[in-house]
């Protein structure tokens, strides 16, 4: 007795296996009714479990808050002082680092240095100013100067360690004197950083020494341990004497600048003498006025402000004086030496650039952690406040100061006083800083909190006024860009259109540079991000004209955002919008430089274009849609040529879309035959253009399904033939396969088997023609693993078994496709062929399972194969033999309690295959 397929009664089997079903009242994923929620919540409350993230009861919260507060207040006095000091130091060193990076040392420009500094001098008294005048000035390279300073620093340290503190001081004075020479201005910041480093070091040494004197006597006896917040009264006489000594020594330095630097270095030591060391700050600020050189005095103020922060407390008075002094200095710099037309001469410009960081730092200190009221009074004191008596009539402000003040002002304050500040900016137009940059900064600051803004209309009107005065595109763009968010959020459409019109008019006149391009990009992106739908954007004045002005990567990124925004909102139906977007997509595509891009760079645009193609929707106008698809195919030729691996390529999307169209046409029924045929034809042309063979294979199958649906048998045969051909060329084209691809191929083959159930065979070729081709393909491929082979073989067996039934499990919806059971009813040779083909497989199956090296996998394969055999074939010697061997393998490979094994044994039992 040979093998024979088991007869199946699909209907009965389904009835036997399906669980009883009942209609549910609510959808399992629908939202709970509110009442149910409440019950649940109250249940939670009674629980002992406390959710750490949920607010606890009022009482508990309060008590824990109290504890927290107590902790803070008890610790606030001492340790926060230290941490604040540490923070100040940290800020300072990072500021210095940035300063050095901003003005790097050039290797070429030499500096002249007083050679006294470079020669080790140990002569004379503390104050060797007379010698100073006689020294020769030596020219050295900047690099050399840096290394000399480093040497000096080491030397100061060493003499201190030798208890030769006078030498340390003398050398420090020399270092401080270096700062008097601001002739090589670009080098000054570096010099400043290095010299103040040494000053700081000296200050720390002196501090430590006096503190030690206050705590331990000469003989080593213990006096007291000074707490961090000690008072002058806690300090013993000797320590005070030493402190006075240092102050006198420093005070005897003749030159002003080094004297100030040294006093600043030991400024904290005043704490040993007075309880209010900050009282010296005002005097020091005034002393700095005596330094006429703008650069030297600005940096001296910087050091002053920094040193002030090392004191336990200080008030803002000295900072305001300091700022006002600096302001006067800059006025002198910008007006005095400026040429008639208001432009600074080159040198002044450079000096200003070098001074800029000092202004930034001082403004930061001035406005850090201030309250609203304080800020108002500070601004009044700086001559830029809202003082009703002056009311801006004589606001004396310098734009560079204004810039850094704006930067530091709290946003809340800025928003509240936006109009006043705007006015202030308008009044302040000098050569120290470009006015439009201040407008821009204000705009950016305000945009951070648009909802808090008051009097928006006034503000926007003012800005429009300002904008209308700008002839240059870059200034116009910069300011417009800064205020765009405000305009957008408040839906000031007219204003927006005016601005866009302004941009358009100005761009006609000049060429767009790199900078303008960036701002235009930002403006357009903001617009794209703001509007919810594409029609609104296209309705804007000159939007497309402005978009056309862009080029290069800016254009690409705007195009991309535009496309992804347009496709985010659901289907695109308006033909004009589709047309515009197609152009945009085309431009995006044209803008891609395929030869020079990395894979990641073009994947995103490709995906966006695919998405666009997918989202286009002509509704019932299917023919127009197909024409659109054809248009796309022409437009995006190249994208498919790339190795776009993961995301869908545009071409694939086209095939999907056309399939979708065909299916829809079929559904609507009326007079669709020719249209579906054209869809199929479209696909037959499009698919071969796709580079990946696997994808081709997949799309052929998909199209074949559509063809079956429509009942176009000739197309089906062609498509499946093409698919198999495709499969056979896998090796030759794609080369090395990734596991993912391989798995994909295998599952596609399985899918093919599923489709073949519905496809009418032909008598000439025999029933098993296509499965044979598939199997021969598998045999020819070295990468096919045993477990894959088993999968396909099982599938083929299932297919053969299904085809031999008298009634199929499923069939094509279209009545035009005749099932094989009808076609070959009673044709013995057909059934015989299937049976013998499957019988051959049955004989191989055990061997192939044995080829699998991994035990676990082998066990599973054996069970799979066993199930397949048992369900497909009738009981016979051959089947029994195969099954028993497979079960044996499975038993040897998997644990006894394995569920798959158990259920397989049960299955065998049920089918009366008795092992």
């Amino acid at each position, binding site marked *: 007795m040979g093998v024979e397929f088991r007869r199946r009664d699909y209907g009965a089997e389904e009835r036997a296996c399906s669980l009883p079903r009942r209609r549910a009242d609510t959808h399992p994923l629908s939202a709970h009714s509110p009442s149910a929620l409440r019950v649940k919540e109250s249940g939670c409350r009674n629980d002992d479990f406390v959710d750490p993230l949920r607010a606890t009861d009022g009482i508990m919260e309060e008590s824990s808050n109290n504890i927290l507060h107590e902790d803070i207040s008890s610790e606030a006095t001492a340790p926060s002082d230290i941490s604040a000091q540490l923070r100040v130091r940290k800020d300072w060193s990072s500021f210095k680092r940035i300063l050095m990076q901003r003005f790097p040392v050039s290797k070429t420009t030499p500096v002249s240095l007083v050679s006294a500094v470079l020669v080790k001098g140990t002569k004379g008294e503390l104050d060797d100013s007379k010698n100073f*005048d006689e020294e020769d000035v030596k020219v050295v390279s900047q690099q050399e100067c840096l290394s000399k300073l480093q040497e000096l620093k080491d030397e100061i340290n060493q003499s201190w360690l030798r208890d030769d503190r006078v030498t340390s001081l003398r050398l420090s004075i020399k270092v401080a004197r270096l700062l008097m020479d601001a002739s090589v201005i670009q080098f000054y910041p570096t010099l400043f950083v290095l010299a103040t480093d040494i000053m700081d070091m000296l200050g720390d040494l002196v501090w430590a020494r006096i503190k030690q004197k206050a705590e331990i006597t000469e003989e080593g006896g213990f006096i007291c341990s000074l707490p961090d917040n000690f008072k002058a009264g806690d300090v013993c006489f000797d320590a005070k004497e030493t402190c006075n000594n240092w102050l006198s020594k420093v005070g*005897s330095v*003749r030159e002003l*600048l080094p004297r100030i630097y040294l006093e600043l270095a030991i400024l904290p030591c005043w704490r040993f003498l007075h309880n209010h060391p900050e009282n010296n700050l005002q005097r020091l600020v005034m002393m700095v006025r005596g330094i006429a050189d703008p650069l030297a005095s600005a940096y001296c103020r910087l050091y002053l402000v920094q040193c002030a922060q090392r004191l336990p407390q200080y008030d803002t008075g000295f900072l305001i004086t300091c700022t006002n002094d600096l302001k006067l200095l800059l006025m002198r710099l910008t007006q005095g030496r400026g040429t008639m037309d208001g432009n600074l001469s080159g040198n002044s410009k450079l000096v200003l650039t070098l001074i800029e960081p000092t202004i930034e730092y001082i403004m930061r200190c001035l406005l850090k952690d201030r309250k609203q009221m304080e800020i108002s009074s500070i601004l009044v004191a700086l001559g830029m406040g809202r003082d009703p008596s002056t009311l801006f009539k004589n606001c004396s402000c310098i734009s560079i100061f204004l810039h850094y003040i704006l930067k530091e002002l709290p946003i809340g304050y800025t928003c509240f006083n936006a109009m006043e500040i705007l006015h202030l900016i308008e009044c302040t137009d000098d050569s120290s800083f470009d006015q439009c940059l201040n407008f821009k900064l204000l705009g950016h600051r305000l945009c951070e909190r648009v909802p808090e803004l008051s009097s928006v209309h006034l503000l926007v009107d003012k800005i429009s006024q300002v904008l209308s005065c700008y002839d240059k595109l870059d200034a116009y763009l910069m300011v417009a860009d800064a205020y765009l968010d405000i305009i957008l959020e408040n839906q000031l459409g007219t204003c927006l259109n005016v601005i866009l019109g302004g941009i358009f008019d100005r761009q006609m006149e000049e060429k767009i540079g790199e900078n303008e391009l960036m701002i235009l990009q930002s403006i357009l992106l903001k617009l794209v991000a703001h509007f919810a739908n594409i029609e609104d954007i296209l309705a804007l004045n000159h939007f497309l004209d402005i978009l056309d002005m862009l080029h290069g990567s800016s254009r690409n990124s705007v195009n991309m955002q535009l496309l992804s925004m347009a496709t985010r909102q659901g289907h695109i139906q308006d033909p004009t919008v589709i047309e515009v977007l197609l152009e945009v997509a085309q431009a995006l595509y044209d803008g891609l430089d395929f030869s020079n891009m990395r894979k990641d760079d073009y994947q995103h645009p490709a995906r966006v274009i695919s998405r666009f193609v997918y989202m286009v929707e002509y509704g019932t106008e299917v023919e127009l849609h197909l024409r659109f698809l054809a248009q796309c195919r022409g437009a995006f030729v190249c994208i498919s040529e790339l190795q776009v691996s993961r995301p869908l390529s545009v071409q694939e999307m086209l095939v999907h879309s056309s399939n979708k169209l065909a299916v829809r046409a079929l559904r609507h029924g009326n007079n669709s035959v020719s249209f579906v045929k054209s869809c199929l034809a479209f696909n037959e042309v499009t698919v071969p253009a796709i580079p990946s063979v696997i994808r081709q294979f997949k799309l052929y199958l998909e199209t074949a399904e559509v063809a079956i649906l429509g009942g176009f048998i000739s197309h089906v045969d062609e498509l499946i033939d093409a698919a198999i051909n495709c499969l056979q060329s896998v090796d030759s084209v794609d080369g090395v396969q990734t596991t993912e691809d391989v798995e994909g191929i295998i599952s596609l083959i399985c899918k093919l088997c599923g489709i073949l159930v519905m496809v009418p065979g032909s008598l000439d070729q025999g029933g098993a023609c296509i499965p044979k081709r598939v199997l021969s393909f598998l045999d020819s491929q070295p990468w096919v693993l045993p477990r894959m082979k088993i999968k396909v073989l099982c599938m083929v067996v299932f297919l053969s078994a299904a085809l031999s039934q008298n009634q199929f499990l499923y069939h094509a919806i279209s009545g035009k496709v005749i099932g094989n059971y009808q076609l070959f009813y009673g044709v013995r040779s057909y059934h015989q062929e299937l049976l013998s083909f499957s019988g051959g497989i049955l004989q191989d199956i055990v061997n192939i399972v044995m080829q699998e090296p991994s035990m676990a996998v082998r066990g599973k394969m054996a069970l799979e194969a066993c199930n397949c055999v048992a369900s497909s074939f009738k009981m016979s010697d051959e089947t029994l033999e195969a099954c028993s061997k497979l079960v044996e393998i499975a038993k040897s490979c998997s644990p006894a309690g394995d569920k798959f094994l158990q259920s397989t044994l049960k299955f065998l039992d049920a089918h009366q295959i008795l092992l």
Partner: protein
Amino acid sequence: MSIEIKLSRFNRTYRPDEPLEGKIITKLNSAISHQFIRLTVNGAVNLQVRGGSAGVIESLYGVIKPIPIVKKAVDIRSSGKIGSGTTEIPFSVILKDPKEENLEKFYETFHGGNVSIQYLITVDVVRGYLHKPLSTTMEFIVESEKDNLPQKPVSPEMVIFYITQDTQRHTLLSELKSGGFRVTGKVCTQCSLLDPIGGELTVEASAVPIQSIDIHLIRVESILIGEKIATESTLIQTTQIADGDVCHGMTLPIYIILPRLLTCPTIFAGPFSVEFKVSIVITFSSVLSKKHSKADPKATKPWMAMESVPLELVRTI
């Protein structure tokens, strides 16, 4: 074999009404015997004429006889022995005994050019004829006694000054004369030795750019020699308060810490006096000033303008 004096105070400073205390420390290889240990305190004003306004004849006199202030000797040990190793012998001397008639007022220690006021303490260990006496001397510093001092703060006596091309007695550069300048301010004329000299200064106008503004502290010592007075001024400290052409109309502070070793309270005694002056010196930048930068700082130059005011220094508590 060594002997030294160690005073009780680290800074060796005493007031006349305070006891001068300390230790005599001997380090001996072997024990010695002595007749007595004598401690001598000696204070005097030494006067000397060196150039200055003194004439040729006066300078021939050279050293003038010193004016004694205090001279007392106390035996702190009668005859006895000092053992080997380190021995410490404490002592305490009253400088100004209210019962005694003093020779002179206890002036504060001062070392000037012509006038020097010095206090010395000497220890002698007398060991008979056969042995050289062991002896050592040390200077200690005397400050005025507290009772007579004014309470701090001294009322700030300020004087207002104007410096213009018209206030200058020496010849000025023509451009200074024609362009004009005006620097005003105030500076204190009486100042505690412990405090800095205070004041302020404003450059109101100047046609020629300023190179520097300095404050000179000048000491004036005078000695009476016969009928004549020999006076010498010394520049004891220069402090720059403006470097370069500063902004006009801005107030610059004058803040000068007094050099402690070079100053003392202003003294007007019969045979000698020590006084102080403050000079505000403005140097204008000109071609000439750069050439002559190494010249004598006290001399007036055509590119400079100056104003001097007397300064009374007082000791306060």
